[in-house]
């Protein structure tokens, strides 16, 4: 294995001995000229307003476009629980799965339904049969309408993707402006202690366009994504 590694790296080094020109630098008359100086991705990516209200509004707009059900709830945990009970009743849930956490436990516990917990190992079949997976998250990203989850924040890898309905419970402080801020947040949380083994930006429910480019939800993962934010 070490031999193969050395052989491959040697070929790479040898190939790189001849320096290369930067692409499309020459005779490019058609492109917009590049703006000189050092620039960060945030300058070019979609704009996000500085205030909380702007971010909240942008998140709501993007989530809606992604067909996620985003609800910004006034009234703290009790209001969140009431909202969730309503959803459970309407959809006729028979059981939920969740993981340890202040919001998740409060939410799942108040439903009066059987609860599968993932943090100490679980039965895959049992998880698959749950009506919903209720998870916390690392952040909500206004720029893209995404939910950022990790294996640490959200009860492992499968919980947010195996049950047919993924419910995210979050706090308003968790809304971040953009992708750059999301990665900065992860770095501040984990770069010292070690990153979780899975980090995922979830943007809307599972979807496919593989049949005639027509959007169908719930291809493999959840058909529904609900984000409850207090």
């Amino acid at each position: 294995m070490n031999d193969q590694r050395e052989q491959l790296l040697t070929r790479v080094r040898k190939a790189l001995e001849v320096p290369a020109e930067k692409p499309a630098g020459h005779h490019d008359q058609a492109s917009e000229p590049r703006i000189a100086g050092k620039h960060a991705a945030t300058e070019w990516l979609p704009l996000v307003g500085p205030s909380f209200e702007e971010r909240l509004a942008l998140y709501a707009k993007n989530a809606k476009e992604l067909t996620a059900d985003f609800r910004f709830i006034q009234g703290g945990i009790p209001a969140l629980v009431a909202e969730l009970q309503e959803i459970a009743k309407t959809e006729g849930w028979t059981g939920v799965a969740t993981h340890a956490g202040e919001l998740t436990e409060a939410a799942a516990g108040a439903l009066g339904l059987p609860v599968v917990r993932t943090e100490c190992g679980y039965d895959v079949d049992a998880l698959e049969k749950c009506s919903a997976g209720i998870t916390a998250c690392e952040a909500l990203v206004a720029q893209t309408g995404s939910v950022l989850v990790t294996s640490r924040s959200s009860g492992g890898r499968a919980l947010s993707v195996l049950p047919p309905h993924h419910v995210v419970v979050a706090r308003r402080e968790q809304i971040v402006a953009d992708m750059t801020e999301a990665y900065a947040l992860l770095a501040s949380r984990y770069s010292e202690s070690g990153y979780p083994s899975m980090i995922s930006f979830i943007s809307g429910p599972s979807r496919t366009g593989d049949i005639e480019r027509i959007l169908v939800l719930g291809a493999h993962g959840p058909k529904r994504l609900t984000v409850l934010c207090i």
Partner: protein
Amino acid sequence: MNITLFVPCYIDACYPKVGQSVVEILERLGHTIDCPREITCCGQPSFNSGYWDETREVAVKVLDRLKDAEVVVIISGSCGAMVKNFYPELFKGRPEEAAALALSEKVYEFSDFLVTKLGVTDLGARFPHKVTFHDGCHGRRELGIKAQPRALMAQVKGLELIEMEEAETCCGFGGTFSAKFPSVSSAMGEGKIASALETEAEYIVSNDSSCLMHQQGLIDRQNKPIKTIHLAEVLNHR
């Protein structure tokens, strides 16, 4: 201004009116025109076919004949791109590289020359027809020409421009490609013409006769109810 006009080979042979229109327009604007007899072709067919040595034989002569020109106008986006962008590539690391770069600096495609260099858009033309415009790929994507022909057409009295959806899509000519892969080339051309027909225009206008030669060839074969015309002829029409 002393303008040296580069008339591409196929315009010389098949579309002389395009060249004549350019001469008349530029002379009316008070410029002196020179059309060097020795220049016939830029060498693009062999260049695009991979025969760069043979291309250099032609291009060296072009470089030499145009070295003293004040400004060079080429009546084609494609030939313009060849001289402006690809000659420096062709002579990279060779003694002629400096001459190629110097020529590149003073070469203009016709519509670009009028609008960018001369700052002229109104040529007093009248062309009472519905037209749609085909952006030749080399003019569009090698030279960045998009607004110039439209600025010129906007000043033509009676002309109504209806943009087609596929204005910037290649018509499938591609020089020797059209003969190497005729079925693909023709299918692309059919798509182009279908898009033009959707506009119900009477004419497809372009700043590149080579694209129009391909499109007209298909139109004639398939009896489609549309005609092609070079921008210069439109601008010289009264």
